[in-house]
């Protein structure tokens, strides 16, 4: 039996159009129009009021609203070590690593290191005493917004970010203060 050639599908011819002569002009013109349109849209939407607060300062004695990034284990994870007492607040450990007051328990005056969502480091006391953090906390990372009152600035401190970790000295000046009126933004 002779091999039967299978039927090929019908050929669909494509109609090839060459690109227009002034493609580059169109693309440059379109780019400029888009740039101007975007500029006008952002200018009209009041971007300055929304986004130009990056240089908001930290003032000794001042109160600043902060958003802090946390996990629920941070109550035990985070600690600082120093022999000094800053306006009634103190680290959970002495500079030699011994627990403050013998137990190392975190109370309303115990300072802990935190980072804001903008990755700014500071020491704060009173976070876990807030009613908002008294119940069951989320299993995932979450943030808390608090009023932070700056009471001092410290440098001869050491920080620890996990219970089994070592205390490492900070290499910058760090704001020290109290956290109050904390809420988890919903």
């Amino acid at each position: 039996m002779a091999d039967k050639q299978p039927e090929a599908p019908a050929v669909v011819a494509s109609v090839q159009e060459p690109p227009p002569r002034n493609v580059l002009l169109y693309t440059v013109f379109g780019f400029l129009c888009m740039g101007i349109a975007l500029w006008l849209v952002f200018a009209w939407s009041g971007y300055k009021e929304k986004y130009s607060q990056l240089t908001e300062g930290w003032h000794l004695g001042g109160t600043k609203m902060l958003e802090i990034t946390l996990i629920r284990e941070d109550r035990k994870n985070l600690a600082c070590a120093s022999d000094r007492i800053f306006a009634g607040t103190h680290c959970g450990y002495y500079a030699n690593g011994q627990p403050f007051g013998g137990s190392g328990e975190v109370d309303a005056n115990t300072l802990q290191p935190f980072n804001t969502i903008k990755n700014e480091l500071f020491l704060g006391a009173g976070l876990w005493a807030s009613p908002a953090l008294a119940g069951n906390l989320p299993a995932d990372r979450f943030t808390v917004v608090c009023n932070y009152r700056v009471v001092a600035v410290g440098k001869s401190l050491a920080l620890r970010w996990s219970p089994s970790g070592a205390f490492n000295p900070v290499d910058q000046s760090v704001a020290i203060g109290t956290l109050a009126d904390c809420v988890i933004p919903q």
Partner: protein
Amino acid sequence: MTFAGATDRIAIATRTKYTQLRQVWWAMPGPQRWVTAFIFVMIGGGAILRIQGLAWPTWFTFDEEPFVRNAYNYAVGLPDINDHAPLAKQLIAVGMLLFGYNSLGWRFIPLLFGLQTVCLAYWLGRSVFGNQRAGWMAAAFVAADGFFISYSRSGLLDGIMISFMLWGMVAAFSARTWRGVIAAGVLIGFSASCKWSGAMTAIPAAVAILVMRRVSIFSVLWLGIVPIVHILIWMGALRLTGKPSDPVSTWKVMVGLYKHHLDLGHYKNELTSPWYGWPILMHPIVIKLSTSGLHSRYSSSLGNLLLWFSTTGLVIALPVTTAVVVLRTRLRRYWTGLLDGPTTRGALLMLVGWFAYMAPWLATRSTRGNYTFSHYYLPCYAFLLVMLAGMAAHLERKYPRFIAVYIGLALVISLYYAPVWGEFAMTASAAHHRLWFPTWRP
């Protein structure tokens, strides 16, 4: 002409165009009409996803800090200490001059180039495949893909580099005189001046010029302007920042950076992924992440899964099939029944672009090791999406229902993934429903 006369003419032209579009719409078969609607939703939605909430978060994410700080240095005349070519940072500085030193200022120019990339995908698809439909599909695919969306929303260099790459390719495909080839060379020089890998565009551009034969084959030599443009831009940048900017000093700076890049294999970074992991989405990076309360906003560089794996499949299937067809001429008629010569040629040209951008990472693997990142695949993927669009536009004539379902599915996937591309506030578990594997998560 009076003002009233001009407005009348514009009104008449608009009305005529509108009537033409209505006629075209009603003349289309049903599935094609669906595809057209999907395309416009993808392009419109992609533009909105790029623009909305651009400036959030107001602080640096991922690699923005080194690029933005050095862009700012250009704005105030201080030296650039970053390890990439200067042009994209200088352009980001223009955004900060317009809007100030804030997150909108440093993300404005990447956004503008991100939107331009969608337009250029249209022009490239149309030029390569000689078909407007291919252009619209290419624009839709790029517009509705998270890889491009996330880079349009960040103060990074890659999106700007890709835009110049596509611009250079459009210029090469549409060149009809040596002046067109020079324009392509200048645009490719701009791409290389954002990131060195942009210079690889010269390879597919040269091949396109030689294959398309719209200009003399010797015109391809004008692409030699690429390094000249690059060096001039670098000299200008050094001069702007008060550094020695003569050719010898510029060359020394470039050689120093080249050695530094070759030596990066010693560095460790948990976001790295090897080249063979890119086509299979081994480790896409979440390039923007901010948390507020119980909700987070993600901008993942994960692509549209359907488009991504279609292109990966084509990278393997197309060269193999073409080789088989060339060797076994009996099978040629099936192939030409499915894809005609110009479509196959266009697709293979786009594959050359894909390979040109993969080659540096294959070649430098001995020195850089695995110190490579998934965003190196962004230019490769741009070429592949244009290739996919050209093939889809061709197949639509023969299998309109199949293509309508395919593009509809791509749109559904984009809608599902839009929250993790466009930084919508969501819980971690909602994000994990989309970012399935640990390597896809931050």
